[in-house]
């Protein structure tokens, strides 16, 4: 596809369950970002990759959050032992090194 693809679109998890969210960036895009958007708020930065290198993970809320991009393309955001406060839309975006950010449609995570 031509855009950033995220899966699943919706995820319902029981509290304590582990989840994995996938992002397929635009082909050739070097930079990849994860953002968290709570209801009624703007996106909050989580982490940034340049190719396979995670250059900034300062926005990850706790050590339960882990992101990887092992081959410099697809990325996975993993949340261990989910809590209710983790409920949010998780957005992935990609870009050329210094270019326009293209966002995916997001994964809406609901933790019950």
């Amino acid at each position, binding site marked *: 596809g031509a855009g950033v693809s995220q899966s699943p679109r919706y995820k319902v998890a029981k509290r304590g369950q582990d989840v994995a969210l996938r992002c397929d960036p635009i082909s050739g895009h070097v930079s990849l970002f994860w953002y968290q958007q709570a209801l009624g708020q*703007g*996106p*909050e930065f989580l982490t940034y990759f340049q190719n396979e290198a995670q250059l900034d993970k300062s926005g990850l809320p706790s050590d339960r959050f882990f992101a990887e991009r092992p081959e410099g393309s697809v990325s996975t955001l993993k949340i261990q032992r989910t809590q209710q406060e983790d409920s949010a839309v998780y957005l992935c975006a990609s870009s050329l090194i210094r270019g*326009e950010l293209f*966002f995916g449609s*997001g994964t809406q995570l609901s933790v019950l």
Partner: protein
Amino acid sequence: TQLLEQSPQFLSIQEGENLTVYCNSSSVFSSLQWYRQEPGEGPVLLVTVVTGGEVKKLKRLTFQFGDARKDSSLHITAAQPGDTGLYLCAGASRDYKLSFGAGTTVTVRA
């Protein structure tokens, strides 16, 4: 905690009216971007402003960056129902890191 404050939070107007959305911060940004986000979708970039005092026009949308590069405004002339959405401003303090405001929800009634 969001570095950028947007106002108003909600705006509902009739088709054909004008509207202005404001974005303010105590921080200086190297550039500022405006996005529009529709329900169930990711934000889509509308414009990037870089120079203090810069004004950019995109059809019926006018964007202004404050002289001190701390604030910005978005003005829509003769709003249409298709302008309905969540408008987000985002400031760049490094090459890659964006800080978003909480957004302004704009509803244009036909």
